[in-house]
């Protein structure tokens, strides 16, 4: 089990949409190796949090701390190194449309300096894990939305990232793909990888919560914290400058 997963947190941030503050003074802390779900309705600010926590963009207000380092104080090289350890898939994953599935899956590995053999091995591993039946030579532009998302999630896992963030992608998947993905997510999480899932509702895996599982609910009143399995209704609501810690409320073995 890996012990190097980073702790990631966002402090005192703000989500603004069309000059209107959606979320104010928001703080979330995600423990290393945890399974965290951040849920909220459409427009609740999930994607903004996803972008900040996956180091895609800095929040205008507030701070992001990744592995004990403040994003504001990290130079370009440090941010790049931090990104090596992150796998993420947004709602509409970006691909090189004219490249094949294989080439798109290989891209993060090539960026990390892997040679051709290592890349091929990793791709085989990941496609097996997700039970992908797609022809890897197909171009991304030829895939339907379900398959695109599956490839996007698979790409998030290539190279064994320490932190994986998925934004609203599970609900797009077919049930079969969803099961495969969730199974892989749980296996990786049990291996020590931090998993953060953004969605409108809890994933089905919440029926089998683990000790480190946590759920944050975004709503107009702020952020609620809770534990998987108990649902967000039983959560406390925290506002202001309070730090929301992903403390598990219930521990159940997932083995």
């Amino acid at each position: 089990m890996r012990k190097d997963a980073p702790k990631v947190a966002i402090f005192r941030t703000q989500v603004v949409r069309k000059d209107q503050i959606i979320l104010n003074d928001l703080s979330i802390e995600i423990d290393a190796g945890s399974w965290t779900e951040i849920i909220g309705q459409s427009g609740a600010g999930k994607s903004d949090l996803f972008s900040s926590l996956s180091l895609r963009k800095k929040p205008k207000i507030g701070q992001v701390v990744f592995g004990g380092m403040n994003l504001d104080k990290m130079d370009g090289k440090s941010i790049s190194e931090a990104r090596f350890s992150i796998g993420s898939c947004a709602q509409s994953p970006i691909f090189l449309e004219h490249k094949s599935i294989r080439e798109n899956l290989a891209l993060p590995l090539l960026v990390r300096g892997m040679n051709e053999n290592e890349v091929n091995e990793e791709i085989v591993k990941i496609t097996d894990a997700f039970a992908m039946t797609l022809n890897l030579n197909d171009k991304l532009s030829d895939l339907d939305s379900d398959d695109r998302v599956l490839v996007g999630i698979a790409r998030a896992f290539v190279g064994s990232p320490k932190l994986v963030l998925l934004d609203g992608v599970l609900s797009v998947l077919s049930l079969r793909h969803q099961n495969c993905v969730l199974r892989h997510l749980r296996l990786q999480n049990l291996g020590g990888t931090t998993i953060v899932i953004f969605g409108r509702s809890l994933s089905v895996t919440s029926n089998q919560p683990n000790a480190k599982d946590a759920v944050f609910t975004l709503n107009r009143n702020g952020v609620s914290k809770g534990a998987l399995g108990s649902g967000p209704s039983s959560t406390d609501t925290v506002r202001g400058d309070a730090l929301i810690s992903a403390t598990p409320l219930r521990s159940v073995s997932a083995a």
Partner: protein
Amino acid sequence: MKKPQPLNHVRPHSVILICMGICIPLIIAIFATGIYKSSESRFATLILQNDVSSKQVSEIQASIAAQMSVSKAEILTPADAAEFLNSKSKVDVGNLGISVAELPSRIRIIPQLGFTFEYVAGDIQEILLGPGIETFVIPEKHDAFFAPASVALMIALILFLIFLPLVWISLATDLRSYSEESKRRIQLMTLFGREDSEMKNTEAGRGIKEGIMFGIYSVAILLVSVIGGHVLFPSIGIEFQGSMLIWSLVMAPLLIIPILSVTARRRVLGEFL
């Protein structure tokens, strides 16, 4: 998915460079060619020993013009020639360094100042004219180096050679940096851990490299067409304006190839790193 539209992303300064690098030299070249053509009107002057009918004169005139690739064939009857020559005490015959008085009595040359002359009368006489008619055909030979048209053309070529690589560098950089696919690649590679500045430098570096290659390519085509025009084509009667024509015809489509090759290569080949 919207396909990349690289040409929509050409920056204004590239357009200015295109104008400076291609259009201005091209305009100068066209003017130079025009000047050259007007100054180069090759013509033949024939002095006929015997009087001939006006119909014969017209026929001879047409034949000479066609056979010699001259723009004008002037026919002087002996009476006309005598009148013409009497009006001049001495006629400069250019590089031959001789005067009219030194020529054989029945031979007359009507020279054009500033040009070198070539005596080809015998050939024409055999081809076109019957016995008893003596001719001198005096085609001009252009002194390419000092002629104003050639100087203008040289300036055009130098401008072209200087600006063309710059045009390509600029265009190729635009195509790389601003195409959708390129932007997406930068975005993804940055996301996967490649430094943003490093990526942009790489892209710009590629643009410059391609630009230089396209520049060399274009210059090579230019040289081949011009040298080809100068060296190869005179033997079949095509000289300077012929090479310019070939230049225009050959260069225009060939210059598009690099643009096509950039977009084609981007789509066909892997360009991950």
